[in-house]
Protein backbone atom coordinates (compact mmCIF):
# COMPACT_ATOMS: atom_id res chain seq x y z
CA UNK A 1 0.00 0.00 0.00
CA UNK A 2 2.77 2.36 0.96
CA UNK A 3 6.28 1.90 -0.19
CA UNK A 4 9.15 4.17 0.69
CA UNK A 5 12.36 3.65 -1.24
CA UNK A 6 15.61 5.15 -0.07
CA UNK A 7 14.06 8.26 1.44
CA UNK A 8 16.61 10.96 2.19
CA UNK A 9 15.84 14.19 3.95
CA UNK A 10 18.36 16.95 4.33
CA UNK A 11 17.33 20.00 6.31
CA UNK A 12 19.28 23.26 6.10
CA UNK A 13 18.98 25.72 8.94
CA UNK A 14 21.31 28.59 8.20
CA UNK A 15 24.77 27.05 8.13
CA UNK A 16 23.76 23.84 9.82
CA UNK A 17 22.99 20.93 7.54
CA UNK A 18 21.05 18.15 9.19
CA UNK A 19 20.73 14.73 7.64
CA UNK A 20 17.28 13.97 9.10
CA UNK A 21 16.47 10.76 7.19
CA UNK A 22 19.14 8.46 5.81
CA UNK A 23 17.91 6.10 3.15
CA UNK A 24 14.65 4.88 4.69
CA UNK A 25 13.08 1.91 2.92
CA UNK A 26 9.75 0.59 4.19
CA UNK A 27 6.86 -1.40 2.83
CA UNK A 28 3.51 -1.11 4.52
CA UNK A 29 0.77 -3.55 3.58
CA UNK A 30 -2.87 -2.78 2.87
CA UNK A 31 -4.96 -2.95 6.04
CA UNK A 32 -2.20 -3.10 8.60
CA UNK A 33 -1.46 -0.76 11.48
CA UNK A 34 2.18 0.08 11.19
CA UNK A 35 3.94 1.84 14.05
CA UNK A 36 7.13 3.85 13.88
CA UNK A 37 8.68 4.32 17.29
CA UNK A 38 11.61 6.53 18.11
CA UNK A 39 12.90 9.04 20.61
CA UNK A 40 12.51 12.79 20.21
CA UNK A 41 14.64 13.96 17.30
CA UNK A 42 14.88 10.55 15.65
CA UNK A 43 13.19 11.90 12.51
CA UNK A 44 9.70 10.47 13.10
CA UNK A 45 7.73 13.52 12.12
CA UNK A 46 9.93 14.18 9.10
CA UNK A 47 9.34 10.57 8.03
CA UNK A 48 5.56 10.61 8.38
CA UNK A 49 5.43 13.96 6.55
CA UNK A 50 7.28 12.37 3.66
CA UNK A 51 4.43 9.93 3.09
CA UNK A 52 2.03 12.69 1.99
CA UNK A 53 4.82 15.05 0.91
CA UNK A 54 3.90 17.67 3.50
CA UNK A 55 7.67 17.87 3.72
CA UNK A 56 8.94 16.46 0.44
CA UNK A 57 11.99 14.19 0.81
CA UNK A 58 15.33 15.29 -0.67
CA UNK A 59 15.70 11.95 -2.42
CA UNK A 60 14.03 8.57 -2.89
CA UNK A 61 10.58 7.53 -4.01
CA UNK A 62 7.20 7.51 -2.25
CA UNK A 63 4.53 5.18 -3.58
CA UNK A 64 1.06 5.24 -2.07
CA UNK A 65 -1.54 2.93 -3.59
CA UNK A 66 0.85 2.33 -6.54
CA UNK A 67 1.03 6.05 -7.28
CA UNK A 68 4.45 7.69 -7.35
CA UNK A 69 3.74 10.91 -5.45
CA UNK A 70 7.02 12.62 -6.31
CA UNK A 71 6.18 12.66 -10.02
CA UNK A 72 2.75 14.26 -9.61
CA UNK A 73 1.79 17.81 -10.56
CA UNK A 74 0.53 20.18 -7.86
CA UNK A 75 -3.03 19.38 -8.88
CA UNK A 76 -2.31 15.65 -8.99
CA UNK A 77 -0.76 15.77 -5.54
CA UNK A 78 -3.80 17.59 -4.13
CA UNK A 79 -6.01 14.79 -5.45
CA UNK A 80 -3.67 12.09 -4.18
CA UNK A 81 -3.67 13.66 -0.72
CA UNK A 82 -7.43 13.19 -0.47
CA UNK A 83 -6.56 9.51 -0.40
CA UNK A 84 -4.25 9.99 2.59
CA UNK A 85 -5.88 11.28 5.77
CA UNK A 86 -3.78 12.65 8.57
CA UNK A 87 -4.28 13.49 12.24
CA UNK A 88 -1.93 15.46 14.45
CA UNK A 89 -0.72 15.66 18.03
CA UNK A 90 -2.26 19.13 18.41
CA UNK A 91 -5.47 18.28 16.48
CA UNK A 92 -5.27 21.35 14.21
CA UNK A 93 -8.98 22.11 14.27
CA UNK A 94 -10.37 25.44 13.11
CA UNK A 95 -11.48 27.46 16.13
CA UNK A 96 -13.91 29.47 14.02
CA UNK A 97 -15.86 26.42 12.86
CA UNK A 98 -18.23 24.11 14.69
CA UNK A 99 -17.53 20.39 14.95
CA UNK A 100 -19.83 19.73 12.01
CA UNK A 101 -18.18 22.41 9.86
CA UNK A 102 -14.70 21.22 10.78
CA UNK A 103 -15.56 17.74 9.57
CA UNK A 104 -17.25 19.16 6.46
CA UNK A 105 -14.26 21.35 5.52
CA UNK A 106 -12.59 18.87 3.12
CA UNK A 107 -15.91 18.45 1.29
CA UNK A 108 -16.40 22.20 1.02
CA UNK A 109 -12.91 22.52 -0.41
CA UNK A 110 -13.65 20.09 -3.22
CA UNK A 111 -17.00 21.67 -4.00
CA UNK A 112 -19.41 19.01 -2.70
CA UNK A 113 -23.03 20.28 -2.75
CA UNK A 114 -24.52 21.19 0.63
CA UNK A 115 -27.12 18.40 0.79
CA UNK A 116 -24.48 15.74 0.16
CA UNK A 117 -22.22 17.22 2.83
CA UNK A 118 -24.90 16.65 5.46
CA UNK A 119 -25.37 13.01 4.47
CA UNK A 120 -21.63 12.32 4.53
CA UNK A 121 -20.84 14.05 7.80
CA UNK A 122 -23.64 12.37 9.82
CA UNK A 123 -22.30 8.80 9.62
CA UNK A 124 -18.87 9.99 10.73
CA UNK A 125 -20.31 11.87 13.69
CA UNK A 126 -21.91 8.59 14.64
CA UNK A 127 -18.74 6.54 14.12
CA UNK A 128 -16.72 8.92 16.28
CA UNK A 129 -19.54 9.25 18.85
CA UNK A 130 -19.87 12.98 18.43
CA UNK A 131 -23.56 13.17 17.44
CA UNK A 132 -24.40 15.42 20.36
CA UNK A 133 -21.41 17.69 19.75
CA UNK A 134 -22.13 18.59 16.11
CA UNK A 135 -22.81 22.24 16.90
CA UNK A 136 -20.17 22.65 19.58
CA UNK A 137 -16.98 24.58 18.95
CA UNK A 138 -13.50 23.10 19.50
CA UNK A 139 -12.89 25.11 22.69
CA UNK A 140 -15.91 23.41 24.26
CA UNK A 141 -14.42 19.93 23.77
CA UNK A 142 -11.85 17.98 25.74
CA UNK A 143 -8.72 16.77 24.00
CA UNK A 144 -10.09 13.29 23.37
CA UNK A 145 -13.16 14.72 21.66
CA UNK A 146 -10.98 17.11 19.64
CA UNK A 147 -8.97 14.18 18.33
CA UNK A 148 -12.22 12.42 17.40
CA UNK A 149 -13.25 15.44 15.35
CA UNK A 150 -9.83 15.39 13.67
CA UNK A 151 -10.28 11.68 12.89
CA UNK A 152 -13.72 12.31 11.40
CA UNK A 153 -12.31 15.14 9.29
CA UNK A 154 -9.47 12.92 8.11
CA UNK A 155 -11.91 10.18 7.12
CA UNK A 156 -14.46 12.29 5.27
CA UNK A 157 -12.70 11.98 1.91
CA UNK A 158 -12.78 8.18 2.38
CA UNK A 159 -9.01 7.80 2.29
CA UNK A 160 -7.21 4.48 2.02
CA UNK A 161 -4.45 5.51 4.39
CA UNK A 162 -4.51 7.33 7.70
CA UNK A 163 -1.32 8.91 9.02
CA UNK A 164 -1.18 9.59 12.76
CA UNK A 165 1.39 12.02 14.11
CA UNK A 166 1.71 11.31 17.87
CA UNK A 167 -2.10 11.26 17.90
CA UNK A 168 -2.36 10.29 21.55
CA UNK A 169 0.61 12.18 23.02
CA UNK A 170 -1.44 15.08 24.40
CA UNK A 171 -4.24 12.91 25.81
CA UNK A 172 -4.91 11.67 29.31
CA UNK A 173 -4.78 7.88 29.80
CA UNK A 174 -8.53 7.38 29.46
CA UNK A 175 -8.83 9.46 26.28
CA UNK A 176 -5.71 7.73 24.96
CA UNK A 177 -7.32 4.31 25.34
CA UNK A 178 -10.52 5.45 23.68
CA UNK A 179 -8.69 6.98 20.70
CA UNK A 180 -6.57 3.84 20.28
CA UNK A 181 -9.75 1.78 20.36
CA UNK A 182 -11.33 4.02 17.73
CA UNK A 183 -8.27 3.74 15.47
CA UNK A 184 -8.35 -0.01 15.81
CA UNK A 185 -12.08 -0.02 15.02
CA UNK A 186 -11.77 2.07 11.86
CA UNK A 187 -8.83 -0.05 10.76
CA UNK A 188 -11.07 -3.12 10.83
CA UNK A 189 -14.34 -1.55 9.76
CA UNK A 190 -13.03 0.48 6.85
CA UNK A 191 -10.04 -1.73 6.06
CA UNK A 192 -7.93 1.38 6.41
CA UNK A 193 -4.14 1.24 6.42
CA UNK A 194 -2.82 3.18 9.41
CA UNK A 195 0.71 4.48 9.87
CA UNK A 196 1.48 6.05 13.21
CA UNK A 197 4.52 7.56 14.82
CA UNK A 198 4.93 7.55 18.56
CA UNK A 199 7.45 7.56 21.36
CA UNK A 200 5.21 5.40 23.52
CA UNK A 201 5.60 1.64 23.61
CA UNK A 202 2.05 1.35 24.90
CA UNK A 203 0.62 2.65 21.62
CA UNK A 204 2.65 0.16 19.60
CA UNK A 205 1.71 -2.68 21.92
CA UNK A 206 -1.99 -2.02 21.97
CA UNK A 207 -2.85 -1.54 18.30
CA UNK A 208 0.04 -2.08 15.87
CA UNK A 209 0.72 -5.18 13.78
CA UNK A 210 4.24 -4.27 12.83
CA UNK A 211 6.76 -1.80 14.13
CA UNK A 212 9.86 -0.03 12.89
CA UNK A 213 12.36 1.55 15.25
CA UNK A 214 13.74 4.85 14.00
CA UNK A 215 17.02 6.11 15.41
CA UNK A 216 18.95 9.11 14.14
CA UNK A 217 17.25 8.99 10.77
CA UNK A 218 17.68 5.28 10.20
CA UNK A 219 15.43 2.25 10.65
CA UNK A 220 17.39 0.12 13.09
CA UNK A 221 14.79 -2.60 13.55
CA UNK A 222 11.65 -3.69 11.75
CA UNK A 223 9.57 -6.56 13.01
CA UNK A 224 6.18 -7.74 14.23
CA UNK A 225 4.96 -6.21 17.45
CA UNK A 226 4.92 -9.65 19.06
CA UNK A 227 8.61 -10.20 18.34
CA UNK A 228 9.45 -6.64 19.28
CA UNK A 229 7.75 -6.97 22.63
CA UNK A 230 9.36 -10.29 23.49
CA UNK A 231 12.82 -9.82 22.01
CA UNK A 232 13.82 -6.50 20.52
CA UNK A 233 17.10 -6.70 18.64
CA UNK A 234 18.24 -3.11 18.33
CA UNK A 235 19.76 -1.19 21.21
CA UNK A 236 17.13 1.54 20.98
CA UNK A 237 14.37 -1.05 20.78
CA UNK A 238 15.70 -2.79 23.88
CA UNK A 239 15.86 0.53 25.65
CA UNK A 240 12.17 1.18 24.92
CA UNK A 241 11.20 -2.20 26.33
CA UNK A 242 13.43 -1.82 29.37
CA UNK A 243 12.22 1.71 30.14
CA UNK A 244 8.61 0.58 29.98
CA UNK A 245 9.35 -2.41 32.23
CA UNK A 246 11.29 -0.26 34.69
CA UNK A 247 8.42 2.23 34.91
CA UNK A 248 6.11 -0.59 35.95
CA UNK A 249 8.29 -1.59 38.89
CA UNK A 250 7.41 -0.60 42.45
CA UNK A 251 8.94 2.74 43.43
CA UNK A 252 10.74 1.28 46.43
CA UNK A 253 12.60 -1.11 44.16
CA UNK A 254 13.34 1.50 41.52
CA UNK A 255 14.88 3.70 44.20
CA UNK A 256 17.52 1.14 44.99
CA UNK A 257 18.30 0.29 41.37
CA UNK A 258 21.22 1.54 39.30
CA UNK A 259 22.07 0.82 35.69
CA UNK A 260 25.48 -0.88 36.24
CA UNK A 261 26.69 -3.73 38.35
CA UNK A 262 27.92 -2.78 41.79
CA UNK A 263 29.13 -4.82 44.68
CA UNK A 264 26.34 -6.40 46.71
CA UNK A 265 23.75 -5.70 44.11
CA UNK A 266 21.81 -8.19 42.06
CA UNK A 267 20.29 -8.04 38.59
CA UNK A 268 16.62 -7.36 38.04
CA UNK A 269 15.82 -9.30 34.88
CA UNK A 270 12.84 -9.11 32.55
CA UNK A 271 12.21 -12.56 31.15
CA UNK A 272 9.82 -12.92 28.21
CA UNK A 273 8.51 -16.30 27.15
CA UNK A 274 6.09 -17.50 24.51
CA UNK A 275 3.82 -20.56 24.34
CA UNK A 276 6.54 -22.70 22.79
CA UNK A 277 9.09 -22.24 25.54
CA UNK A 278 6.82 -22.17 28.53
CA UNK A 279 6.82 -25.97 28.83
CA UNK A 280 9.97 -26.33 30.92
CA UNK A 281 10.31 -25.47 34.61
CA UNK A 282 13.20 -23.11 33.84
CA UNK A 283 13.00 -21.30 37.15
CA UNK A 284 13.39 -24.45 39.12
CA UNK A 285 16.24 -25.41 36.82
CA UNK A 286 18.31 -22.29 37.44
CA UNK A 287 17.61 -22.36 41.14
CA UNK A 288 18.94 -25.89 41.39
CA UNK A 289 21.76 -25.78 38.85
CA UNK A 290 23.21 -22.40 39.77
CA UNK A 291 22.28 -22.25 43.39
CA UNK A 292 20.37 -19.00 43.04
CA UNK A 293 17.46 -17.61 44.91
CA UNK A 294 14.98 -15.99 42.58
CA UNK A 295 12.74 -13.31 43.92
CA UNK A 296 9.77 -12.79 41.60
CA UNK A 297 8.74 -9.16 41.50
CA UNK A 298 6.14 -9.24 38.76
CA UNK A 299 4.68 -11.87 36.52
CA UNK A 300 1.89 -11.54 34.05
CA UNK A 301 0.73 -12.68 30.68
CA UNK A 302 -0.32 -10.44 27.84
CA UNK A 303 -2.14 -11.17 24.64
CA UNK A 304 -0.71 -9.41 21.62
CA UNK A 305 -2.59 -10.16 18.40
CA UNK A 306 -3.97 -13.40 19.77
CA UNK A 307 -0.57 -14.61 20.93
CA UNK A 308 0.06 -15.24 24.56
CA UNK A 309 3.24 -13.80 25.90
CA UNK A 310 4.48 -14.09 29.45
CA UNK A 311 6.57 -11.45 31.11
CA UNK A 312 8.29 -11.98 34.43
CA UNK A 313 10.48 -9.59 36.33
CA UNK A 314 12.69 -11.21 38.94
CA UNK A 315 15.62 -10.37 41.14
CA UNK A 316 18.38 -12.99 40.97
CA UNK A 317 20.41 -13.38 44.09
CA UNK A 318 23.58 -15.45 44.18
CA UNK A 319 27.26 -15.45 43.24
CA UNK A 320 28.09 -13.12 40.34
CA UNK A 321 29.47 -15.92 38.12
CA UNK A 322 26.47 -18.16 38.84
CA UNK A 323 24.06 -15.38 37.91
CA UNK A 324 25.86 -14.80 34.62
CA UNK A 325 25.77 -18.50 33.78
CA UNK A 326 22.09 -18.64 34.69
CA UNK A 327 21.28 -15.75 32.39
CA UNK A 328 23.20 -17.45 29.56
CA UNK A 329 21.30 -20.65 30.27
CA UNK A 330 17.97 -18.85 29.95
CA UNK A 331 19.05 -17.25 26.67
CA UNK A 332 20.06 -20.68 25.48
CA UNK A 333 16.57 -21.94 26.30
CA UNK A 334 15.26 -19.21 23.92
CA UNK A 335 13.84 -17.13 26.68
CA UNK A 336 14.42 -13.45 26.16
CA UNK A 337 16.20 -11.82 29.02
CA UNK A 338 16.88 -8.13 29.52
CA UNK A 339 18.64 -6.90 32.62
CA UNK A 340 16.76 -3.79 33.69
CA UNK A 341 19.31 -2.76 36.30
CA UNK A 342 20.96 -3.86 39.50
CA UNK A 343 19.31 -3.47 42.86
CA UNK A 344 21.38 -3.14 45.96
CA UNK A 345 20.21 -5.14 48.94
CA UNK A 346 19.02 -3.20 51.89
CA UNK A 347 20.52 -4.55 55.04
Amino acid at each position, binding site marked *: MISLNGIEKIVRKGNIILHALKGITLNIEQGEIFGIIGRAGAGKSALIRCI*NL*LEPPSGGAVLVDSCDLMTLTTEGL*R*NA*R*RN*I*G*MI*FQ*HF*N*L*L*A*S*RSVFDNIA*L*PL*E*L*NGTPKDQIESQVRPLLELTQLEDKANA*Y*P*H*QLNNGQKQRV*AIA*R*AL*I*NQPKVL*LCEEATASLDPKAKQSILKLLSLINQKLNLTIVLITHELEVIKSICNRVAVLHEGEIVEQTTVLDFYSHPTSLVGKEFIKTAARNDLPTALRNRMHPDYRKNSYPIARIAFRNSNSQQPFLAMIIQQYNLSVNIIQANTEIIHNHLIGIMVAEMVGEKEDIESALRFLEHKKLHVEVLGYASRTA
Partner: protein
Amino acid sequence: MLHELLNALEETLFMIFAAGLLTWIIGLPLGAILSVTAPEKFLANNVIHKSLNFLIHTTCSVPYIVLMIAVIPFTRLIIGSTEGSVAAVVPLTLAAVPTFAGLTEKAINHVQAGLIEAAKTVGASNFQIIYKILIPEALPNIIKSLTTTLVHLVGYSTIAGALGAGGLGGIIIAKGYQSFQTDYVLSTLVLLIVLVQIIQACGDYIANGSLHPQNNI
Protein backbone atom coordinates in the same frame (compact mmCIF):
# COMPACT_ATOMS: atom_id res chain seq x y z
CA MET B 1 -25.99 75.41 12.62
CA LEU B 2 -27.51 71.99 13.09
CA HIS B 3 -27.94 71.66 9.38
CA GLU B 4 -24.31 72.58 8.74
CA LEU B 5 -23.09 70.14 11.34
CA LEU B 6 -25.21 67.30 9.99
CA ASN B 7 -23.97 67.99 6.48
CA ALA B 8 -20.39 67.98 7.70
CA LEU B 9 -20.96 64.78 9.65
CA GLU B 10 -22.40 63.16 6.56
CA GLU B 11 -19.31 64.14 4.55
CA THR B 12 -17.01 62.84 7.25
CA LEU B 13 -18.91 59.56 7.47
CA PHE B 14 -18.77 59.22 3.70
CA MET B 15 -15.00 59.77 3.65
CA ILE B 16 -14.34 57.33 6.47
CA PHE B 17 -16.55 54.54 5.24
CA ALA B 18 -15.73 54.86 1.55
CA ALA B 19 -12.02 54.86 2.36
CA GLY B 20 -12.59 52.10 4.94
CA LEU B 21 -14.34 49.91 2.40
CA LEU B 22 -11.60 50.42 -0.20
CA THR B 23 -8.98 49.78 2.47
CA TRP B 24 -10.64 46.48 3.33
CA ILE B 25 -10.83 45.44 -0.32
CA ILE B 26 -7.19 46.34 -1.06
CA GLY B 27 -5.57 45.86 2.33
CA LEU B 28 -6.93 42.41 3.21
CA PRO B 29 -5.36 40.59 0.24
CA LEU B 30 -2.18 42.64 0.64
CA GLY B 31 -1.90 41.67 4.30
CA ALA B 32 -2.56 38.02 3.45
CA ILE B 33 0.09 38.07 0.71
CA LEU B 34 2.56 39.73 3.07
CA SER B 35 1.97 37.05 5.68
CA VAL B 36 2.17 33.97 3.48
CA THR B 37 5.18 35.13 1.44
CA ALA B 38 7.33 35.80 4.52
CA PRO B 39 10.43 33.60 4.92
CA GLU B 40 9.61 30.03 6.06
CA LYS B 41 5.89 30.56 5.40
CA PHE B 42 4.02 28.30 3.03
CA LEU B 43 4.36 30.54 -0.02
CA ALA B 44 7.70 32.09 0.95
CA ASN B 45 8.80 34.54 -1.72
CA ASN B 46 11.49 37.01 -0.84
CA VAL B 47 11.01 39.35 -3.78
CA ILE B 48 7.27 39.83 -3.27
CA HIS B 49 7.52 40.00 0.51
CA LYS B 50 10.39 42.46 0.61
CA SER B 51 9.01 44.82 -2.03
CA LEU B 52 5.55 44.89 -0.44
CA ASN B 53 7.08 45.41 2.96
CA PHE B 54 9.21 48.28 1.66
CA LEU B 55 6.21 49.91 0.04
CA ILE B 56 4.14 49.63 3.19
CA HIS B 57 6.81 50.91 5.51
CA THR B 58 7.67 53.89 3.35
CA THR B 59 4.02 54.89 3.00
CA CYS B 60 3.47 54.45 6.73
CA SER B 61 6.35 56.77 7.53
CA VAL B 62 4.98 59.67 5.48
CA PRO B 63 2.84 62.05 7.62
CA TYR B 64 -0.71 62.19 6.32
CA ILE B 65 -0.68 65.85 5.33
CA VAL B 66 2.46 65.35 3.23
CA LEU B 67 1.03 62.22 1.61
CA MET B 68 -2.20 63.99 0.75
CA ILE B 69 -0.39 66.83 -1.00
CA ALA B 70 2.11 64.52 -2.69
CA VAL B 71 -0.60 62.40 -4.32
CA ILE B 72 -2.59 65.36 -5.70
CA PRO B 73 -1.69 64.53 -9.33
CA PHE B 74 -2.77 60.93 -8.78
CA THR B 75 -6.05 62.04 -7.19
CA ARG B 76 -6.73 64.38 -10.11
CA LEU B 77 -6.03 61.53 -12.52
CA ILE B 78 -8.56 59.24 -10.85
CA ILE B 79 -11.34 61.58 -9.67
CA GLY B 80 -10.77 64.52 -12.02
CA SER B 81 -10.60 67.03 -9.17
CA THR B 82 -8.80 67.45 -5.87
CA GLU B 83 -11.51 69.29 -3.95
CA GLY B 84 -14.32 67.85 -1.88
CA SER B 85 -14.90 64.72 0.10
CA VAL B 86 -14.99 62.35 -2.90
CA ALA B 87 -11.49 63.38 -3.93
CA ALA B 88 -10.28 62.97 -0.35
CA VAL B 89 -11.13 59.26 -0.44
CA VAL B 90 -8.06 58.63 -2.63
CA PRO B 91 -5.37 59.89 -0.24
CA LEU B 92 -7.32 58.54 2.74
CA THR B 93 -7.31 55.06 1.23
CA LEU B 94 -3.63 55.32 0.33
CA ALA B 95 -2.85 56.24 3.91
CA ALA B 96 -5.01 53.57 5.52
CA VAL B 97 -4.12 50.59 3.32
CA PRO B 98 -0.53 50.17 4.60
CA THR B 99 -1.57 50.35 8.26
CA PHE B 100 -4.38 47.88 7.76
CA ALA B 101 -2.30 45.51 5.60
CA GLY B 102 0.47 45.51 8.22
CA LEU B 103 -1.99 44.74 11.03
CA THR B 104 -3.70 42.05 8.93
CA GLU B 105 -0.33 40.44 8.29
CA LYS B 106 0.28 40.20 12.03
CA ALA B 107 -3.21 38.83 12.65
CA ILE B 108 -2.68 36.09 10.05
CA ASN B 109 0.80 35.32 11.40
CA HIS B 110 -0.87 34.31 14.65
CA VAL B 111 -2.83 31.48 13.04
CA GLN B 112 -1.19 28.18 13.98
CA ALA B 113 1.00 26.74 11.22
CA GLY B 114 -0.53 23.32 11.95
CA LEU B 115 -3.82 24.42 10.42
CA ILE B 116 -2.09 24.95 7.07
CA GLU B 117 -0.66 21.43 7.26
CA ALA B 118 -4.08 20.02 8.10
CA ALA B 119 -5.64 21.90 5.19
CA LYS B 120 -2.99 20.60 2.80
CA THR B 121 -3.63 17.04 3.85
CA VAL B 122 -7.29 17.35 2.88
CA GLY B 123 -6.37 18.71 -0.54
CA ALA B 124 -6.73 22.48 -0.10
CA SER B 125 -5.24 24.73 -2.76
CA ASN B 126 -3.04 27.66 -1.76
CA PHE B 127 -5.87 30.08 -2.47
CA GLN B 128 -8.29 27.99 -0.39
CA ILE B 129 -5.82 27.92 2.48
CA ILE B 130 -5.83 31.72 2.50
CA TYR B 131 -9.54 32.40 2.21
CA LYS B 132 -11.01 29.31 3.87
CA ILE B 133 -8.50 28.84 6.69
CA LEU B 134 -6.21 31.77 7.40
CA ILE B 135 -8.60 34.71 7.00
CA PRO B 136 -11.57 33.12 8.86
CA GLU B 137 -9.30 32.02 11.72
CA ALA B 138 -7.70 35.47 11.97
CA LEU B 139 -10.99 37.33 11.45
CA PRO B 140 -11.51 38.59 15.03
CA ASN B 141 -8.06 40.18 15.01
CA ILE B 142 -8.54 41.46 11.47
CA ILE B 143 -11.78 43.16 12.57
CA LYS B 144 -9.90 44.76 15.46
CA SER B 145 -7.31 46.00 12.97
CA LEU B 146 -10.07 47.46 10.82
CA THR B 147 -11.45 49.27 13.86
CA THR B 148 -8.04 50.78 14.57
CA THR B 149 -7.76 51.76 10.91
CA LEU B 150 -11.19 53.43 10.93
CA VAL B 151 -10.24 55.43 14.02
CA HIS B 152 -7.07 56.55 12.19
CA LEU B 153 -9.27 57.51 9.24
CA VAL B 154 -11.37 59.78 11.47
CA GLY B 155 -8.18 61.67 12.29
CA TYR B 156 -6.99 61.76 8.69
CA SER B 157 -10.39 62.92 7.45
CA THR B 158 -10.26 66.02 9.66
CA ILE B 159 -6.84 66.90 8.23
CA ALA B 160 -8.31 66.36 4.77
CA GLY B 161 -11.15 68.66 5.82
CA ALA B 162 -8.65 71.39 6.55
CA LEU B 163 -7.33 71.03 3.00
CA GLY B 164 -10.71 71.50 1.34
CA ALA B 165 -12.38 68.12 1.70
CA GLY B 166 -15.18 69.50 3.88
CA GLY B 167 -16.63 67.39 6.67
CA LEU B 168 -16.13 68.08 10.38
CA GLY B 169 -12.51 69.04 9.69
CA GLY B 170 -13.75 71.76 7.35
CA ILE B 171 -16.10 73.10 10.03
CA ILE B 172 -13.42 73.27 12.66
CA ILE B 173 -11.14 75.24 10.33
CA ALA B 174 -13.80 77.59 9.00
CA LYS B 175 -15.80 78.21 12.19
CA GLY B 176 -13.29 77.41 14.85
CA TYR B 177 -9.88 78.46 13.65
CA GLN B 178 -10.84 81.38 11.41
CA SER B 179 -13.66 82.89 13.50
CA PHE B 180 -13.51 81.42 16.92
CA GLN B 181 -17.09 80.18 17.45
CA THR B 182 -17.09 78.08 20.59
CA ASP B 183 -20.41 76.35 19.94
CA TYR B 184 -19.13 74.93 16.64
CA VAL B 185 -15.86 73.83 18.18
CA LEU B 186 -17.59 72.09 21.06
CA SER B 187 -20.22 70.38 18.91
CA THR B 188 -17.58 69.18 16.45
CA LEU B 189 -15.49 67.90 19.32
CA VAL B 190 -18.42 66.00 20.83
CA LEU B 191 -19.44 64.57 17.45
CA LEU B 192 -15.89 63.30 16.77
CA ILE B 193 -15.56 61.73 20.20
CA VAL B 194 -18.95 60.03 19.90
CA LEU B 195 -18.06 58.83 16.38
CA VAL B 196 -14.80 57.24 17.53
CA GLN B 197 -16.52 55.62 20.51
CA ILE B 198 -19.22 54.13 18.28
CA ILE B 199 -16.66 52.76 15.82
CA GLN B 200 -14.64 51.24 18.66
CA ALA B 201 -17.67 49.71 20.35
CA CYS B 202 -19.02 48.21 17.13
CA GLY B 203 -15.62 46.81 16.22
CA ASP B 204 -15.17 45.21 19.63
CA TYR B 205 -18.68 43.81 19.58
CA ILE B 206 -18.20 42.16 16.19
CA ALA B 207 -14.70 40.92 16.91
CA ASN B 208 -15.49 39.46 20.33
CA GLY B 209 -19.01 38.31 19.92
CA SER B 210 -20.68 37.21 16.82
CA LEU B 211 -17.69 36.03 14.80
CA HIS B 212 -15.82 33.88 17.23
CA PRO B 213 -18.08 31.99 19.56
CA GLN B 214 -15.11 30.74 21.59
CA ASN B 215 -14.75 34.19 23.13
CA ASN B 216 -18.19 33.90 24.68
CA ILE B 217 -17.34 31.44 27.40
